[in-house]
């Protein structure tokens, strides 16, 4: 964090005027940042908590905020795997004691969560503060961030239900993170100085050592894995993903009928993923009308496609009953178009 004092500013300007410092070479380029400007953008929080704003928040307040702003993507308990990988779960009391998540080495962990991985609590604070909620980043005040983080820590059974997290006690919480000892920087993929010269990493020494053998390098070829049949077709018609002339052609993975079927199945999946199938059936009404009912009503209208796209996007009420359809701004425009065309073509 940069704390600009008036004295330093004056001194810096004075030295610029008298000494031959580097920034005189680019006269007229750039200007000093004001204190307010630096404060507005300098929001990073480091593992030593440099940059951490003052504030506090309780688990209870965090619970309320999480339900309101976070649960739709992460699930009420941070357990959801629908939109992003889960935040909480996968650790034990022993992990908290040892600072290493045992499930990471034992293979017992079905899926890594944020708290099975993260070793520094500043990381989570920083990320919530700068990037969450997903659709309205940087809208949370420091107290909100402390509260949400307190709720997550309670979900993870690191702090009790009556805990209030603050800038004063966050360093103590750090000492309870279940994977706080789970990171190593001793590898060749950090390009800076090695640890013994004050950097991190091992100075760039690789961990594999293949040799460039040229003749009779091994007695036989061991195939470890081949492409499963479902994976051959899961990426659609490969013939259409290659140039149609030249030394090779894309392999035809789907026939014309299979291609249509795959497109239909893909659209049904898209409708399910986009949340449409929760309220609409293929033929009959669930909460909203069935798709064949929609088709029957709109099929003769020339502007049906654009009207339906607008309706699905903005939501509506009254056409099919009293329960409103919520706006569907989370669905991409191109997906909306695909879905509406699918409905108007007699969805299957």
């Amino acid at each position: 964090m940069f704390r600009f004092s008036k004295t330093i500013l004056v001194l810096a300007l004075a030295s610029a005027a008298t000494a031959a410092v580097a920034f005189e070479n680019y006269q007229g380029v750039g200007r000093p940042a004001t204190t307010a400007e630096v404060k507005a953008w300098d929001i990073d929080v480091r593992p030593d908590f440099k940059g951490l704003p003052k504030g506090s928040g309780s688990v209870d307040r965090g619970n309320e905020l999480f339900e309101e702003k976070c649960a739709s993507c992460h699930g009420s308990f941070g357990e959801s795997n629908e939109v992003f990988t889960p935040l909480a779960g996968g650790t034990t009391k022993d992990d908290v004691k040892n600072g290493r998540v045992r499930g990471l080495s034992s293979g017992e962990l079905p899926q890594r969560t944020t708290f099975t991985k993260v070793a520094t609590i500043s990381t989570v604070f920083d990320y919530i503060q700068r990037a969450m909620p997903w659709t309205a980043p940087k809208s949370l005040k420091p107290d909100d961030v402390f509260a949400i983080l307190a709720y997550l820590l309670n979900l993870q059974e690191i702090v009790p239900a009556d805990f209030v997290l603050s800038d004063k006690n966050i360093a103590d919480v750090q000492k309870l993170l279940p994977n706080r000892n789970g990171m190593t920087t001793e590898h060749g993929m950090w390009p800076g100085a090695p640890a013994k010269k004050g950097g991190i990493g091992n100075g760039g020494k690789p961990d594999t050592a293949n040799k460039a053998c040229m003749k009779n390098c091994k007695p036989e070829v061991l195939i470890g894995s081949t492409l499963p049949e479902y994976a051959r077709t899961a990426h659609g018609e490969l013939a259409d993903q290659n140039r149609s002339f030249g030394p090779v052609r894309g392999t035809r993975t789907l026939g014309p009928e299979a291609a249509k079927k795959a497109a239909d199945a893909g659209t049904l999946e898209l409708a399910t993923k986009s949340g449409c199938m929760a309220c609409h059936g293929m033929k009959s009404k669930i909460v909203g009308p069935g798709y064949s009912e929609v088709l029957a009503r709109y099929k003769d209208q020339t502007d049906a496609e654009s009207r339906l796209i607008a309706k699905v996007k903005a939501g509506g009420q009254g056409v099919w009953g009293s329960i409103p359809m919520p706006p569907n701004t989370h669905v991409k425009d191109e997906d909306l178009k695909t879905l509406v065309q699918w409905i108007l073509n007699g969805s299957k």
Partner: protein
Amino acid sequence: MGDIVKQPGRLRPAPENFLTEEQVQAVGAGRRDFLRKSLFAAGAALAVPKMVRASEGDPNILENPAWTTSLGQPVATNPYGLPSKYESQLLRRESPGLARVGGASVSFAPLQGLFGIITPSGLHFERHHQGWHDIDPSKHRLMVNGSDDSLLKKAKVYTLDELMRLPSVSRIHFIECGANTGLEWGNVAVPTVQYTHGMLSCSEFTGVPLKVLLEDCGVDYKKARYVLAEGADGSSMTRTIPMEMVESGEVFVAYGQNGEMLRPENGYPLRLVVPGVQGVSWVKWLRRIEVGDKPYATKDEAVHYIDLLPSGLHRQYSSIQEAKSVITTPSGGQTLLDKGFYNVSGLAWSGRGKIKQVDVSFDGGINWQTARLEGPIQNKALTRFNINWVWDGSPAILQSRAIDETGFVQPSYGQLRAVRGTKSIYHNNAIQSWKVIESGEVSNVQVL
């Protein structure tokens, strides 16, 4: 058929794409009226074509097509230019099921159809963490500040107008996402080189060395050993960069790409270029540089982009993309047209410098031959390699193996997994194998 190279001027059957598959089948079944109608349609705009017998030669030669006998489009019909309408198939594509939210997803570059080493800007892979914006350059600012007063004499703000007045460099570098080939750590998962290796692109970038800006602000290199780069998108992506790389002059703040401004999907109007280092560090929509005396442990170096080892430890701050190569022609999901001669072609790269040598095997790694490296061979850039091959129609397994100027040899899957297990996600630089079967179909396999 095997002697195709000894048969110059060999005639091919019906020209590709001229007939639909159904029409080809109809012709094959003896119904030639389809063929006649199609030929007629093609020439109808001009004059009734003279029907030629196949024995006289190729109708594409014997009958002048419309583009030879009529007036073409005037200049600037497409003021920014567009690819040919016949080039509609090679596109950036998503891998189904990989990500559930488009704003935090990946689109892959179609390596299977690209030439040379430069990726067309419109086909450059995308990876966003909170969706992309088309930022107004007149409102964009770059701030340089210190995490402490002692590290930097003066925090400064630059506009694009100002940055573009400064001395610039233009350099060709590859950018590869740390997760490239990550789908394949455990086993073969995807069919084509677009999905196995397409989080890879290479461009000529133009901009100002970050060193110039830090020195302009009066950095103290003795104390400031790390740089935090931060983006202006919703996620305000942040990554720690080692000061050694900045001091070397390699790292630069880029606005230009392949002769034009950056595309919005690639960070318009400003992104960081960190040669040899995984793409997540090349912060897009760059708005702030902070110099510090400690690394930052940001989300993408403490929760994601960390490599899980068999011991249960995660490797943190992994950055360098080690030497790697892949054959792009022929590659998975393609089918060879015929037996005979092929120029086998591919790409090699290393985050530690220049590519020194690429070897190719046609028998699954038992025997190797050294490929031709095509110029230019540049530091931390893609290098194109080619090698001659006459396919005799029998099964084959094609592999390529890159060696960089440090002497590092690209590892096999067996060697890589022996050290890093199978759950790592990031930094998979194992040797890729493509299996060719008698039908000419090429598919993805892993050789240990």
